């Protein structure tokens, strides 16, 4: 508890009728006044309105409140607003607490008004118990180095590097292959403009190489990452040569790769003339087609949106804890297939169908699909394909089409028409498989080094799917391109520019404040067992002189160390044992 006696103010929000229509707010306000350490309470029609906030700030001053509780909605949306109101009234914002009586009370108990009022009182009592133990905290300030590292030299990585350089930041661009360009190097033309990929790629590669602020490092991998936002120490390795760089921010643009079916899936690798869309792309680009095919059958969603993958290479994963859980995910993929839609395959198939038709107008092109997902302007692209006589047949996806070999290099695809339910036998020359975009295997190791969670689809996870799409959970590390999920070229560019803007903002400010949600070690209690160092995902604990220490900038505030410490020597600021236990006790004790 702080040195001064807690003087808690409780502000109960009606939220119009959202809370007030179910919970008896005046009753809760009255009840709050009876709780220990509560000096003041009031009801507000909308606490978050200008009038509500003004009243809150006024009460803080008039009643010398040193703890504030707003009983209203969820802290996930409104905590920042009320925290800033507290700051404006001169109160440290870590002395603010929210009691969620809307999402977790009035909205789920609309027909049990009496019980909901009792529950709201309990929730307020729990918040009061916790608030009594709240402490003010300063947010540490960090210096941010004005150099960035971009991992991955595909279209996203190059765009991010160029955008950063345009803002005047020195940038290292690391690519594991000997050349820049990523997936685009293997592509022939791009939908929907049908531009030659080389015409797009070459000028970008040139300007990246010519830019004095960008240092390109090809055939190079990231082998170690230490440090934290503003001060990352990254080890890069190339042919056994190591190079250390110090950067303030990191953009991960590691991309995704086209899934190659295992031998035997749809007779791939067994019969000739069965290829992936990527292989057809290369065939069209190299103009090596000797004899125009009479018919081409394309099959969509091969190994995607359903379970038919049999081969995912698990070799090469270290056997540590994280790797084991990732291996679990990949094992599930092995059994179930990649469940998501890669969203580029429909357009890619349509593009290649049109290209085949352009080249060989006599060739019959059939696309067997479960669903065609063409959005925005791509609807026109689909119509264009239909006008050039590309045939779209919806087949019953649950029945895997069978492919048989016929004399003279011909093939027959047998599938079931979804509309008539009839068997379709399609003699053809080529079968083209549309396969999904999947994560690179190396991504797993990179994710571990950077402490970025991996989603159940196997891609790098953003900090918030809607609100923070290019941020990661690790401060100073941002995502660009298909590494966080399938993206086409414009989407990759958008995310790359967004990531560069986010990284640029940090570096331009030169300094940042981090949340005080960090662990603190009580050296008197610490016995130097090192368990915290062992379990910390972020490397935020280290032992020195047989005592554990926290590196605040690395600590993300999960609190696992506080839970594991056998001597209870670690305290998780703002979620201390006392604060949590006070809530537990208050929940179970009617009169505290």
């Amino acid at each position, binding site marked *: 508890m702080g040195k001064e006696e807690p003087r808690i103010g409780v502000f109960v929000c009606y939220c119009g009728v959202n809370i007030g229509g179910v919970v008896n707010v005046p009753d809760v306000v009255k009840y709050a006044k009876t709780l220990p350490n509560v000096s003041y309470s009031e009801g507000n029609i909308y606490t978050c309105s200008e009038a509500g906030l003004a009243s809150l700030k006024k009460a803080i001053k008039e009643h010398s409140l040193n703890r504030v509780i707003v009983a209203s909605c*969820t*802290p*996930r949306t409104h905590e920042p607003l009320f925290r800033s109101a507290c700051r404006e009234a001169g109160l440290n914002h870590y002395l603010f607490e929210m009691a*969620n009586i*809307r*999402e*977790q*009370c009035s*909205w*789920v*108990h*609309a*027909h*049990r008004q009496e*019980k*909901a009022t*009792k*529950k709201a009182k*309990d*929730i307020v009592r*729990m918040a009061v118990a916790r608030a009594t133990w709240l402490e003010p905290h300063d947010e540490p300030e960090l210096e941010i180095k004005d150099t960035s590292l971009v991992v991955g030299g595909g279209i996203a990585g190059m765009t991010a590097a160029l955008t950063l350089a345009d803002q005047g930041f020195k940038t290292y661009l690391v690519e594991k292959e000997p050349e820049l360009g990523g997936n685009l190097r293997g592509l022939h033309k791009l939908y929907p403009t049908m531009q030659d990929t080389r015409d797009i790629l070459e000028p970008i590669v040139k300007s990246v190489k010519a830019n004095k602020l960008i240092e390109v490092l090809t055939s190079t991998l990231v082998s170690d990452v230490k440090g934290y936002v503003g001060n990352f120490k990254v080890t890069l390795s190339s042919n056994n040569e190591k190079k250390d760089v110090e950067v303030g921010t990191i953009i991960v643009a590691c991309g995704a790769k086209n899934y190659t079916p295992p031998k035997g899936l749809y007779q791939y690798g067994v019969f000739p003339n069965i290829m992936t869309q990527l292989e057809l792309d290369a065939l069209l680009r190299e103009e090596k087609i000797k004899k125009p095919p009479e018919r081409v059958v394309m099959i969509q969603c091969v190994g995607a949106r359903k379970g038919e993958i049999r081969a995912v290479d698990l070799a090469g994963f270290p056997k540590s*804890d*994280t790797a084991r*859980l*990732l291996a*679990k*995910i990949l094992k599930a993929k092995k059994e179930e297939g990649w469940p998501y839609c890669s969203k580029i395959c429909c357009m890619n198939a349509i593009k290649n169908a049109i290209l085949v038709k352009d080249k060989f107008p006599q060739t019959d092109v059939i696309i067997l699909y479960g669903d065609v997902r063409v959005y925005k302007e791509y609807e026109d692209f689909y119509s264009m394909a239909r006008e050039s006589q590309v045939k779209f047949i919806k087949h019953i996806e649950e029945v895997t089409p069978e492919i048989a070999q016929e004399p003279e290099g011909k093939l027959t695809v047998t599938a079931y028409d979804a509309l008539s339910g009839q068997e379709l036998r399609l003699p053809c020359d080529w079968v083209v498989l549309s396969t999904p975009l999947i994560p690179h295997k190396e991504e797993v190791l990179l994710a571990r080094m950077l*402490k*970025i*969670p*991996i*989603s*159940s689809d196997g891609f790098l*996870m953003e900090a918030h799917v809607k609100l923070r799409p290019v941020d990661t*959970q690790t401060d100073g590390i941002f995502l660009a391109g298909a590494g966080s999920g399938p993206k086409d070229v414009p989407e990759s560019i958008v995310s790359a520019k967004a990531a560069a803007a986010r990284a640029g903002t940090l570096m331009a400010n030169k300094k940042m404040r981090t949340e005080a*949600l960090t662990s603190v070690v009580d050296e008197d209690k610490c016995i130097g067992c090192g368990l915290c160092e062992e*379990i910390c*995902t972020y490397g935020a604990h280290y032992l020195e002189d047989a005592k554990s220490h926290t590196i605040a900038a690395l600590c*993300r*505030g*999960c*609190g*696992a160390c*506080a*839970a*594991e410490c056998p001597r209870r020597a670690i305290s*998780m600021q703002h*979620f201390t*044992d006392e604060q*949590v*236990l006070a*809530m*537990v*006790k208050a*929940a*179970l*004790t009617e009169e505290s």
Partner: protein
Amino acid sequence: MMQEAKVEAEFEPTILAFCCNWCSYAGADLAGTSRFEYPTNVRIIRVMCSGRLDPTFVLSAFRWGADGVLITGCHPGDCHYVQGNYMMERRFAFLKEALTHLGIEPERLKLEWISAGEGEKFAALIRDATQRIKQLGPNPLKAT
């Protein structure tokens, strides 16, 4: 149904739910936004990660009279802090064992993974847990 209504009149359990800030607490919020109704017996305590849960939080809850405790976190592989939920899973196995030795039915403690998008799952968990704990009756420690 008649019998259930009778049981409800006799005993209203108090259940604590620990929710992680990123997934299950957001799932509980979504249940609210979606207006999925559930019984009023649960009191939610927010922590940043299920990995923060010290086993003593759970044991103290039972000692102070909780009739049930729910621990919720992000799905495997989705933890905001990479592996906090796995740490919780390990402690959960220990907690179940410890409860048995203390004479508390281990069914009073439940671990469930709930994502920010699973409001219905959260509501269903509360409905099921409330029903289940009503059948078990009050926390046996309360009688002593």
